[in-house]
């Protein structure tokens, strides 16, 4: 198995293990979405109207929550020093870590999102659109979030700072992700939203690992 996959597998196993990030992120995701009907009222008309936005905002927050230990754990136990000695450029090591984060938080949230659609009264054909949008949007969250995680790797309790740095950068994902689900609800196919999400992902793929590797090198000194 290549070094890249080996790093992904290790990180995913650590995340799925007890005390790992996955369970926390998914439960937080579910809980946050459940709060909205309690706050706004149970009328399905209203809930259906705000469902895409609520699901996406909760997904953003859940992703941020599980990111601050992405590199910090490795820095603190010395793994980062070793990862820098691996025959794989640090940029690809960073990409592997972001992929592992997506597999361990993005995918589970994706799997759970139809359930949240039911909670918020989404109609039938919206689920396909919801899954597609989440699939296209959540990887960018892991990549952009990875930049925040690397920049705050040496910061004590950097979780809140990480969200402050990264959430503004995730606005496009939120806008187009919600738009994609809205147009699915309206029965149109994804419209221009899915290509936009794909374009954002295509831009984030080279940008994020470069920025993450740059930030990590600072902390290797």
């Amino acid at each position, binding site marked *: 198995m290549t070094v890249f996959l080996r790093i992904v597998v290790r990180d995913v196993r650590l995340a799925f293990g007890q005390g790992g990030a996955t369970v926390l992120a998914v439960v937080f995701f579910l809980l946050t979405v459940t709060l909205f009907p309690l706050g706004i009222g149970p009328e399905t008309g209203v809930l259906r109207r705000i469902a895409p936005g609520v699901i996406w905002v909760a997904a953003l927050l859940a992703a941020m929550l599980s990111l601050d230990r992405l590199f910090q754990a490795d820095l603190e136990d010395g793994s980062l020093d070793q990862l820098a000695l691996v025959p794989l450029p640090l940029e690809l090591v960073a990409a592997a870590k972001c992929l592992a984060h997506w597999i361990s938080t993005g995918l589970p949230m994706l799997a759970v999102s139809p359930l949240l659609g039911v909670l918020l009264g989404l109609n039938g054909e919206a689920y396909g659109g919801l899954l597609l949008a989440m699939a296209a949007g959540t990887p960018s969250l892991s990549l952009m979030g990875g*930049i925040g995680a690397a920049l*705050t790797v040496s910061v004590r309790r*950097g979780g809140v*700072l990480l969200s402050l740095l990264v959430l503004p*950068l995730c606005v496009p994902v939120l806008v*187009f992700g919600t738009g994609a689900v809205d147009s699915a609800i309206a029965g149109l196919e994804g419209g221009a939203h899915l290509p936009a999400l794909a374009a954002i992902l295509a831009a984030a793929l080279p940008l994020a690992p470069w920025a993450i590797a*740059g930030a990590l090198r600072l902390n290797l000194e």
Partner: protein
Amino acid sequence: MANWHRLANPTLFLEWSRRVRPWTGVATAALLATGVYLSLFVAPRDYQQGDAVRIMFVHVPSAWMALFAYAVMAVASAAGLIWKSPLAHLTAKAAAPIGASFTLLALATGALWGQPMWGTWWVWDARLTSVLILFFLYLGYIALWQAIDDHARAAKSAAILALVGVVNIPIIKFSVDWWNTLHQPASVLRMDGPSIHSSLLTPLLVMGAAFAGYFVVVLSIRLEREVLARQVRTLRRVQSRG
């Protein structure tokens, strides 16, 4: 290129900035006085907005400066990373609070302008929303500087954030514009009004130049302070090592 490099040496910078600052200060004051005079007394009322249009002469230049300051931060950050010049990083650090203040000013004047036009203090207009997100980018940048105690590492981390930010600003602007057209019928009155004819343009440009002058003056003051703070840190560390 050569003399810019010479300027990168802090002591030379201190001397240059002290000599240039009074002149830019005077020029800025003059520009500001003319600008305000033109905006309040000379510029004609707008046939639609009446005198409320005068708020534009403060709102638009501050929005310009909010973006300009971020551009300065990004260029200084890139220069800092490429030529490893601490002065460039300090320039970026000095520019951030000024940019944040201009963003705040743009938001406040935007709300004051929105009230008479739409009867609400806050309008989710595409431009205003982008300025609000820019404000959070500034807060994040400033917070990152303060969160990392090792000064050299804070400088480079902030530089990376500024570069990532500057790449994202057009994407954010595009997505907010898209979001705006999606949810709101094209509002007849765009924030910066229909095409601006010359009588409104001159005060706008004069105020813009005045704000730019102000930016340079305050930047040189804050930068000088950062350079001195760096010298204090070095002196203190030398003493502590005995």
